[in-house]
């Protein structure tokens, strides 16, 4: 108990902060912060597995998040029959061509010795394959995108419950991580960072512009929910009774029957959106707890010890007969898959998929700030990092507005500098994040909750 005191204290402070938002601002805001904190926590756990356990730097988090989101779309949207009829055959043919291409390349790689000719012929196969696919798929793509472009214009998905996409998102992200890992993991740390960052940009470019698959920048809206809809809740009897019971004290004060009914209606509307958010919180909390148990188990298993050995001294681990390359690839896939789950969760919560909103600042660098601030190598630290940083990211504007008003209280409202500062309040969050990161890296380089390894 005593040695975990700092963990308990840190989490209690965090919870108190969120509760304070609930009391002083509104429960709706508090819960939406809490939900996104949970999603951020899942992302940080993924990044933490790669960085904290194995020392692999992955600046491609944005790409895996987006792939998770794509999975949510492909799983939950109903298939667009007309589009399938129009261009499905061409798309399937192209898919088939890709498979053939990969098989041919594998065959060449296996069959021939490494030589210049082999490299060039593989390049030739890839280039001609891409051209072939482009020309064979083009009519199909055009046909699909022409099908009711204002509403669909894409193939749609499988029409399954969106919850499944959390697993599929992990598979997608893991699949991409396998390819990226095969290609880039041999690079030195900072090159790996740049390479993964650029690959994630390529992924986003594809998601943004392949309209037949993702609708691109036209966005997919109105995804199915795993939680009830507010409108339905507001007309359900048991829910109204529940709200009435919760607020019986407040309602009984009101004498007039009509007024009481109006107040109840208002409470039901507010309550319904809180209730929906609570449903999401429950779902996300389950995911976080499952992942936490799994990652903690992994950390203290022989496998976790091996990962730390590889991280701390690659050559020594190699000499002890551990397959460093294979383990690096494995952990890269695992971490990215967790990020993929988070991506799918994010789209599930929002109910919409907007490829244009995936930006490295928000989905890569901010997540890294969370990992570093929270404490790399410590799962509790990673989750805390997700909570603290997301909380500050959202509350930075009110906090800095308060500070500006406080420090410039002597200056009249009409002062140009003051007005300018108040106008640029939203950008103080960047300043806070940057300064926070710099201070933590300088004075507490292991994060708020540092890595603590006990041999059990």
């Amino acid at each position, binding site marked *: 108990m005593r040695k975990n005191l700092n963990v308990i204290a840190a989490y209690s402070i965090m919870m108190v902060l969120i509760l304070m938002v609930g009391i002083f601002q509104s429960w709706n805001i508090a819960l939406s912060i809490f939900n996104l904190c949970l999603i951020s926590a899942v992302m940080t756990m993924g990044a933490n597995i790669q960085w904290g356990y194995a020392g692999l*730097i992955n600046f491609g988090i944005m790409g895996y998040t987006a792939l998770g989101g794509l999975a949510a779309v492909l799983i939950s949207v109903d298939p667009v029959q007309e589009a399938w009829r129009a261009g499905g055959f061409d798309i399937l043919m192209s898919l088939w061509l890709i498979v053939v291409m990969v098989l041919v390349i594998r065959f060449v790689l296996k069959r021939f010795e490494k030589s210049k000719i082999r490299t060039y012929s593989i390049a030739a196969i890839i280039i001609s394959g891409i051209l072939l696919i482009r020309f064979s798929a083009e009519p199909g793509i055009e046909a699909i995108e022409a099908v009711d472009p204002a509403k669909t214009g894409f193939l749609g998905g499988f029409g399954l419950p969106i919850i499944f996409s959390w697993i599929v998102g992990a598979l997608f992200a893991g699949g991409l991580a396998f390819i990226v890992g095969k290609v880039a993991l041999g690079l030195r740390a900072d*090159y790996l960072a740049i390479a993964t960052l650029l690959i994630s940009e390529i992924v986003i*470019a594809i998601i943004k*512009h392949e309209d037949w698959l993702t609708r691109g920048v036209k966005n997919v809206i109105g995804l199915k929910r795993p939680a009830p809809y507010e409108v339905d809740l507001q007309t359900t009897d048991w829910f109204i009774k529940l709200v009435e019971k919760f607020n019986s004290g407040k309602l009984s004060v009101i004498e007039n029957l009509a007024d009481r009914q109006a107040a109840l209606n208002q409470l039901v509307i507010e309550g319904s959106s809180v209730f929906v958010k609570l449903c999401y919180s429950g779902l996300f909390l389950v995911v976080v707890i499952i992942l936490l148990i799994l990652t903690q188990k992994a950390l203290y298993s022989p496998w976790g010890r091996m990962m730390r050995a590889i991280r701390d001294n690659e050559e020594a681990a190699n000499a002890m007969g551990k397959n460093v390359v294979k383990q690096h690839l494995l952990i890269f896939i695992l971490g990215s898959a967790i990020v993929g789950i988070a991506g799918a969760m994010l789209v599930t919560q929002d109910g919409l998929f907007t490829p244009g909103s995936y930006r490295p*600042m928000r989905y890569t*660098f901010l997540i890294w700030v969370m990992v570093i601030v929270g404490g790399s190598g410590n799962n509790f630290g990673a989750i805390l990092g997700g909570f603290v940083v997301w909380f500050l990211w959202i509350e930075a504007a009110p906090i800095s507005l308060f500070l500006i008003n406080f420090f410039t209280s002597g200056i009249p409202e009409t002062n140009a500098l003051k007005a300018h500062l108040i106008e*640029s309040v939203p950008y103080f969050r960047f300043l806070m994040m940057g300064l926070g*990161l710099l201070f933590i890296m300088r004075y507490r380089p292991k994060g708020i909750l540092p890595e603590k390894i006990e041999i059990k």
Partner: protein
Amino acid sequence: MDFVNAIILLLNYIFIPALTYGSQLALGAIFVTLIYGILRFANFATGDMMSFGTMMTILFTWYFQSLGVSLGVLPTALLAIPLGIIFMILYMLLIDKFVFKYYRHQKSPPVQFAMVSIGVMFVTQAVVRIIIGPGDRRFFDGEKFIIKAREFKEMTGLNEGLAIKSTQVLTIFVTIVLVSLLFWFLNKTKTGKSMKAYSDNEDLALLSGIDPKKIVLVTWVIAGILATIGGALYGLDKSFKPFTYFNNMLPIFAAAIVGGIGNPFGAFLGGYVIAFSEILLTYAYKKFFMYVLPESMEPDSLVQLLSTDYKFAVSFSILVIVLIYRPSGIFKGKVL
């Protein structure tokens, strides 16, 4: 005649824009490569440092414009650039003193430096957005075109027009002058040579009496000059928007690595490699073939290898390929 038309078409839509864009990338790439070679870290704040320098230039441009000072046909920004450079260098030295110096003395691994530079990136982004705002700013004044497309057509009687913007000529000219000066400095002067020595082998350089503080100072000064001029030229040619500058970091990194990181000449060429491949692969050649081929063979489609949406993706793919097959870059930089 058709053949001349085709060449003018390529000049107008591929060659001149790519040369301009390449010059802008090249300046940024040399900045990245110098920091990497001498201070030994990948600077993720590159784009934002460039936007800081450009912002200072814009502020001084506005000040000069309000005073009524102008250069006639040339943009007023040229007067403001030296002042922008001074502030950029001061900002960089400030950051170095409070942030990077500590890690240099600790001999931290490059990854930690990269993380710290992300912190600097956040802070710089905030500073720029707080001072000038996130919006799109144009600060170009003076004569816009050297040759207008219509005038060119009338002059030569060709179908295709050739438009040359003054910013394009300015960019290319300034880049050539600046880069030649830089190479002269690095190869001929004592300080430049000691910088190269420091980059090649730090311990040996220190043993032979090279002052590391001076090297670091000179590196930041050169970096400040490159960042401000590169950023200001890009802003003059297109427009200034903090977010675009942050995004430009990616092709700049690509250029630096393709050219062999730590090798300034490679970075210079790398900028053009990236710019030309981006534009060559995403240009629709339909019109070109209409001029060159006989009528019966004219293509129906746009003859575009990749859609322009994938412009950035092209440079990143090139980078990934280079990283896999020739990690030290096309022109041999530091070996990984």
